[in-house]
């Protein structure tokens, strides 16, 4: 009788062990809900040349009401990118320059930033 009880205990132990092993296995988390963010509008940039060292940037957006301010990117090859920010959403033009030298491959970019600090894609245009 003791042997039978011992055998049953062994089976019970094995069954419980299997269940514990299976339940203890790692499990990935479920997908979270998408963030409720206002999609920032991508500006449409136009670059005009005042002279060979000075540039005038003008842009427009589809919905200005969601924009807090704009970011202006000046991209100089080999030297990197500098970022300036406008004061508010009403400023939709900027003048860059005069630069010290004529920079081949110079590019400008503009993005909008919403009130939630989400930045839009950058519209990049060449200076020349």
């Amino acid at each position, binding site marked *: 009788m003791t042997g039978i009880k011992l*055998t049953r205990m062994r*089976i019970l132990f094995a*069954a419980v062990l*299997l269940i514990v092993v299976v339940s203890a296995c790692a499990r*990935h*988390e479920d997908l979270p809900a998408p*963030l409720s*963010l206002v999609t920032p509008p991508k500006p449409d940039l136009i670059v005009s040349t005042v002279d060979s060292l000075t540039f005038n940037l003008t842009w427009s957006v589809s919905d200005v009401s969601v924009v807090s301010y704009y970011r202006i990117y000046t991209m100089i090859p080999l030297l990197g990118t500098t970022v300036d920010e406008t004061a508010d959403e009403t400023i939709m033009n900027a003048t860059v320059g005069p630069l010290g030298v004529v920079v081949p491959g110079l590019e400008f970019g503009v993005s909008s930033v919403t009130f939630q600090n989400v930045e839009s894609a950058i519209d990049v245009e060449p200076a020349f």
Partner: protein
Amino acid sequence: MHFLEIHSNILPSFAYMQLGTMKVNSDGMMSTKGKHGFMRPRIVAAAVLVAVFLPGQALAVDNASLWRSLLFPGVGQAHQGHYKKAAIFGGTALLAATGVFLSSVNYTEQANKANAARNEFLFFPTQLMNGEVISITEIDETYARMVSATEEADDRFKVRNFFIGALITVYAINVVDILISKPHDTETAQRIQIEVNRDRVMLTRTFGF
């Protein structure tokens, strides 16, 4: 009035289904005396867990073989002398165990990727609240990466569960087999017998499974 009663008083694994006659006594109480039929269906699917509750007297339990089969499928059968069954159980369990190991490694790697992408994505609101500017492109890319990684993890999770299920099934069948089978008696079952009569000689080869 006929009714179907299902009860199990001693052995939970066997449901004794009795077809009886319901009678109303003089005091208005119903009794269930009078059997007209008897069925005894076996529930095979829950064999391992059910076997825990089975009284040992009802089965030809060979403790040594049972213990060996619990260690690894097929070992108990080999101990009983059923080598073909031992090879089948052992080979299948080995395949399933290898599948569990490889698919678990595969799944864990993907689950970590999915969870990392998820954590990165869920950290965006905190960063935005702290005034950090984040590109919508980066948010979209992280979300797409998280969805892709999670879907891949889902697929690998199913594969891992398949192998776990296969391993558990092999274990269960292996234990049930040990519980219901008897040790192979090599002494009584002569493998080769020769019977010589006046007009013929008969050679008999016995196979054990």
